[in-house]
């Protein structure tokens, strides 16, 4: 187990900094890929983990899902900067 910042946490930070912190500012996977220059498969993989951990919440219909941070996700990001 590494002491490096985990990859999914880097994605969480980027989502936060882009502004996806509430449902009306949630982002689709395509938008996330464009912002972060990450591969779709990688974004999907990390998002799934972040949703399971309760840091990201999906909104919208199946297949057209959009994602934004939960309050715990925001707090998690801020621990890196404070």
């Amino acid at each position, binding site marked *: *187990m*590494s*002491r490096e*910042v*985990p990859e999914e*946490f880097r994605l969480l*930070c*980027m989502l936060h*900094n*882009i*502004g*996806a*912190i*509430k449902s009306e500012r949630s982002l689709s996977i395509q938008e996330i890929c464009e*912002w*972060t220059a990450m591969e779709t498969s990688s974004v999907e993989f990390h998002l799934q983990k972040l949703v399971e951990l309760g840091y990201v919440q999906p909104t919208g219909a199946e297949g057209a899902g959009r994602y934004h941070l939960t*309050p*715990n996700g*925001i*707090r*998690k990001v*801020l*621990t*890196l*900067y*404070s």
Partner: protein
Amino acid sequence: MRICILTWEFPPRIVGGIARHCEGLARALAHMGHEVHVFTLDFPGTPDYEEIDGVKVYRTVTELGHPNFLTWTLLFNHFLEKRLGRVSQQVKFDILHIHDWLTAPAGISFKYCVKKPMILTVHSTETGRAQGIHGPDSFAIDGVEWWATYEASKIIVTSGSMKGELCGHFHLPSDKIKIIPNAIDLTKYQMSVDPQSVRQRYGVGSNEKLVLCVGRLVPQKGIEHLIHAVPAIVWRHPEAKFVIVGEGWLKGHLEYLARSSGHGWKIRFTGFLPDLEVIALMTSADVLVIPSIYEPFGIVALEGMAAGVPVVASQVGGLAEVVEHDRTGILVYSRNPESIAWGVDRVLSAPDHSRWLTENARETIQKVYSWEGIAKKTIEVYKEVE
């Protein structure tokens, strides 16, 4: 006075000690009759503007984003500045008070715009948090911190150790820096708690010992050293159980260490908990361990002392100033699991002595760390530069 406070953290946007510090100071200043305006960032479920105990709180939405952290910081400073500009057309501020580097760009611009003095409270530094300057972002943050200290009329720090760090690192004149410690609202700790039901919620029985740790799960908090101390503590106290409260990017690593310690089933990570639940846990614990490797103040020590739990803390930074060894708590060597285990054993093996420590600690808190006193000292600093 009309006081303008800028902070990127304000409840319920709570990360570390800054949010609690700004809330306590703002309330105390308002209680003294000053007009206090707090400008901060938005948080889901909070209004754009509200008044809390006489404090006017403006929560600003950062309308543009960018994945890069430093660019995002500049963007939210821009939107803070716009909000400040709009409000300052109605309110003539006497003083501007910023907290840490994150709101420095907006604060410095606003200082020149309204031609009023700016006070900076430095809660921590990049070199301290990151234990050195490790990359371009770190170097940039260090530069902004220096800029803020240069532009500030006076600097407030919460401990002598932080003052030494600033004087040494930024070559600041000693008389520019004033030490005003953190404080604590003791009324929050007078709530009625049923320790048995609290302990039960976290899987700790009445015959077991609850060893509590509260802090962000980041390297500077040194929680890995507590986990490394678990086998030695359990050897001396097989009935010990460990509850670690907090969030942070190091969580996965710490959970892995806990599992690898051979005592993973005794160590519970709760994640973020609301303030009242943390107080309930502190009130119900047998010992609070603060194993930090860097701690400019360590408000969690005050919280533990106020809750009446014996505190075992690393002898670093502000902790070594807040906790008086073997009188108000136990100080142990930083980064040293054996020393942490010794400290925990000292508390758990001597209940009468531990009770004496907590009585002394509470007396000290009442005498030294009240928000009313801290607000008065802060006003003195404002008046020096007005």
